[in-house]
């Protein structure tokens, strides 16, 4: 069954893609043309569906197994937190918090690494990008 999960996923992607392709609104002048805005998506969607169907029948074996998806979920949560924090706390404080949180989650114990490395990275980023290159980045809703 596991050998069919990815082909099924691909078939689903192809199905949604083809459904969305047929919903592309064409201009009257291009509707009768052979190569219009739907042509390439249709071609790609149909080809993907064909490949996925063949893979579904033949089965697919994973090349890398035994992944630790719990760590991935934790890192994904950190990234979501980072994205949520940026508009409120600003890029650099959010970056320092993201680094500290992900280092801690990945098992880093040394207090110096957990505090100094994130702060120094955020400070270096701010100095290089905002001070050095003069790029304006919104400071965040909490500070403005």
């Amino acid at each position, binding site marked *: 069954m596991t050998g069919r999960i990815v082909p099924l996923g691909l078939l689903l992607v192809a199905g949604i893609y083809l459904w969305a392709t047929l919903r592309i609104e064409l201009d009257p002048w291009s509707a009768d043309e052979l190569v219009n805005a739907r042509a390439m998506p249709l071609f790609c969607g149909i080809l993907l569906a064909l490949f996925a169907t063949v893979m579904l029948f033949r089965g697919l074996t994973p090349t890398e197994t035994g992944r630790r998806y719990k760590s991935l979920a934790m890192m994904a949560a950190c990234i979501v937190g980072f994205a949520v924090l940026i508009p409120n706390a600003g890029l650099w404080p959010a970056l320092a918090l*993201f680094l500290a949180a992900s280092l801690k989650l990945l098992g880093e114990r040394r207090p110096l690494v957990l505090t100094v490395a994130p702060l120094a990275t955020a400070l270096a980023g701010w100095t290089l990008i905002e001070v050095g290159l003069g790029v304006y980045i919104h400071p965040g809703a909490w500070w403005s």
Partner: protein
Amino acid sequence: MWEGIAQGLGTALDPANLLWVAAGCCAGTLIGMLPGLGPITAIALMIPVSYTLDPAAGLIMMAGVYYGAVFGGSTSSILINAPGVASTVATSFDGYPMARAGEAGRALAIAAYASFAGGTIGALALLLFAGALASWATAFQSPEYTLILVLALSSIAAFAERGRVARSCVAALLGLMLGTVGTDQSAGVQRFTFGRLDLMDGISFILLAMAVFALAEAFHMLTTRERGGDYRPAASVRLRKGDARAITPTVGRNSALGFLVGILPGAGATLASFFAYDFEKRFNRNPACGIAAPEAANNAACTGSFVPLLTLGIPGSGTTAVLLGVMLSLGIQPGPRLLETDPAVFWGVIVSMYIGNLVLLALNLPLIPYISRLIQISRPVLIPFVAAFSLVGVYLTTSNVFDLYLMLGFGVAALILRSWGFPLAPLLLGFILSGMLEENLRRTFYLVDGSFSMLLHRPATLVLAIACAAIWMAPAIRWWRNRPRGEPRS
């Protein structure tokens, strides 16, 4: 041509550009040396930096990053048996045993000199061929471009790893599909945006490159327990007496081989290094030559892959696909007209490849014993920084939080695809070629206006069409030749 080379020398030898090529080499070496991170990741991570430079300096820096990362990958292959990329796997076959035998410094020196020689021979060949090919390619029109693009995409299947042809095709198709998201350039209609304003301009190239290579690589390191061999420090990086004489012919023949393989769309440095190792080992058992052959070939192939990129504007590999994206973002349209419109960039990039090799040799030989200690950085420290750098890089270029969510989704999807054996370079290649293919296909249809026989009167079109057909027919011919035959009757 000589005028162009002089102009290129002027651009590449500008003190600021020299500084950028040196910085690119250093950054590339440092990133490429980190286990798991290769040239594509190094280039993807450096894109935000290139945006702050003028086009010539940005590209020159990227050429340095490319070479630095290839050399950095060889360093981790030799010292800890953890090749950052497939193109340096062959180096570890003889390199790591030498390092284990206490000859890490010698192995690194052979790799450095062979890389330098391979890159130099490649740069000279590029210098000779690129201008001529670009002049010839100015006669190309949409039909030829369409077929070249089809050829590049077909080559993905032709050069795919054994047993992974279908997966490579699926990855390329996914890339083509992602390339269709956004506003259609010709008709101006919305496609696959699902009403979201964030998707109207399409998916950003930098977002996809960072997600598929940098972030997915961080996720891969996070979810696996794999580690390389023990670290073998290199005290001094020197050749032994007799090494130079032994490796010179090896370097010469494999550089030529690597350059030719590098020109082929879809082949790239990986195939070149394996070809070279296999070729050399047929008649040469010297481990020094076992390191020199793949190193010379992969560096020459890196240079060779610039031929289709600079002269036709078509990337032949994942790395050059990222570089094409960088060029387009910097406002440079590579292709035959680049030689006329921006000769300083065209020749500057070619000459800077040679300068980059020189800088790499000058910097790495004395510094490698020290900077190779970076390999020992633990993964729990490395992963958050790779993830943070890629996320911040994307946010700085798009200033859109939605892109970070999109990036997370693509990163997870890329990890899943990778776990099931789907190569990711064809995905990026498909994404980059998608818009070009659609545009040229449309123009071709307008041009031929229903009469395809006119294409047969164009010799280049005919040759390209035959090449495409040959690639498509090759698996069927191979199957026919290897088909099981019945036992002959006694």
